[in-house]
């Protein structure tokens, strides 16, 4: 579904992605973890052409997103829904209008239908009766949900989550994790999640990859990840107090 082919990216003298290769299968939840500044969000941004690689290519299906332009690029982007780290809601629009925005601006559907879809998707992410509120009047967790409702209202094939639980308390973070998991099951979408929260990663990911110094030091199932002997992975697991998968999988009903 998404394929990185020898992708290299550097900012100044710092090499953030160093000839990385990986492929994300259709329908899976692929989680990228790593320390701050490891290049997790940079990888995500390459998938939607907010960044372009200095070398290598990024493929989405049969299309090379890193070389596409114009209508072709628009067609590729229409396959994506993105939940940004800051939620990226337009502050002068209320919650419902934010969710309606992509349909209003990119389709000719009647407004009644657009509003119905917005309400339906807000309900899907557990938000009812907040459509008239402004983004500044709701909590961070609710803003993430609104951002998610806006990301899925166009029925994308792929949803990208950039640090979906950052800045949220543990209870709300788990709710967002469960929502990501349930959306994958309900909509059958491919999900790519960038996070530094290993508990989330191991709970929702079908595969987890750890980015360190521009390379993936491990990429595999949660079981393979937790069994890794790589010192960076071990350090990361220890720092977050994780030594087994059982509790996490139990919490996620797996």
């Amino acid at each position, binding site marked *: 579904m998404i394929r990185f082919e020898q992708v290299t990216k*550097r*900012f*100044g*003298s710092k090499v953030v992605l160093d000839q990385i290769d990986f492929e994300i299968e259709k329908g899976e939840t692929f989680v990228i973890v790593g320390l701050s500044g490891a290049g997790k969000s940079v990888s995500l941004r390459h998938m*939607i*052409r*907010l*960044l*372009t690689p200095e070398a290598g290519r990024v493929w989405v299906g049969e299309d090379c997103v890193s070389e596409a332009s114009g209508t072709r*690029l*628009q067609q590729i*982007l*229409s396959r*994506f829904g*993105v939940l*940004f*780290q*800051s939620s*990226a*809601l*337009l502050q002068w629009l209320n919650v419902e209008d934010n969710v309606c*925005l*992509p349909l*209003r*601006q*990119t389709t000719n559907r009647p407004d009644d239908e657009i509003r119905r879809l917005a309400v339906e998707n807000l309900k899907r992410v557990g938000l009812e009766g907040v459509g008239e509120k402004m983004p500044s009047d709701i909590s961070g967790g609710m803003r993430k949900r609104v951002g998610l409702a*806006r990301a899925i209202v*166009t029925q994308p094939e792929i949803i990208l989550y950039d640090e979906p639980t950052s800045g949220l308390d543990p209870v709300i973070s788990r709710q967002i994790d469960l929502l990501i998991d349930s959306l994958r099951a309900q909509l059958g979408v491919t999900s790519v999640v960038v996070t530094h929260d290993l508990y989330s990663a191991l709970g929702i990911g079908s595969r987890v990859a750890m980015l360190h110094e521009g390379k993936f030091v491990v990429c595999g199932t949660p079981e393979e990840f937790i069994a890794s002997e790589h010192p960076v992975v071990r350090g990361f697991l220890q720092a977050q107090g994780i030594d087994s998968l059982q509790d996490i999988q139990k919490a996620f009903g797996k």
Partner: protein
Amino acid sequence: MITRESQNYDPPVNPVAALGRRVIEACQGSGRALLLLLGAITQLPYMFSRKNRADVMLQLYTVGIKSLGIVSVVGIFTGMILAIQMGLALRMVGQEGQIGTLVTNGMLREMGPFMTGLVIAASVGSAIAAQMGTMTVSEEIAALDVMNISVERYLVMPRLVALAIMTPMLTIYMDLIGIVGGCVVGATMLGVSPEAYWDNAFRYSYNKDLYVGVLKAFIFGLIIVSVSCYQGFSTKEGAVGVGRATRRTVIVSFLLILMLGYFVTRLWYQ
């Protein structure tokens, strides 16, 4: 897509290289601002579309109606200052009765469009840069790009329409208010009757003065929208970057208004 990666260069090795880099960046910036303006112009056919007309109306209101107060104050005091300075000079040669002509010509040709341009750049232009800058650093612009929503159409075009229409209209309003201010000073300080003032005001003023002033205001509107949107979209480094973008918008707009104002005057009044 508006979202552009920032250029990654190695640090300049000497002052000449640093200067060269600044020149190249200035040229690139000018080109991008111009392309942004052209991109918004190509979206003008959609200004009355169902998707955009509400935004266009909102911007017309924001730029036009909300600026009336400050334009009124600046206009009346500009006219009064012109009247005092010119009136006192003319009184020395016993020609203070001609004050209406000088204030009217001064307002229509230069001070009306110039002061309106500065007021709009400082109030509306800085607000646009701050809004676009905040949207850029909070990833809202990136989100619009990814949602396939044209930023030129959704954000820039309504502001272009508002500034291109409202700057000339506010200029005409400021001209009028300034001429009235001159009349008040003439009557209360210089002993020039309102009848004599208005008679002189229109006797030596020509339609060309008004048209050239309005043309200047139109150009100033285009300058303000392209500079403010470009600076906003180029914002980096969070709140500090937003402040920097706002400051640059005001400085660059002021300089371009001054320079282009001079060249338009020179072209029409050789």
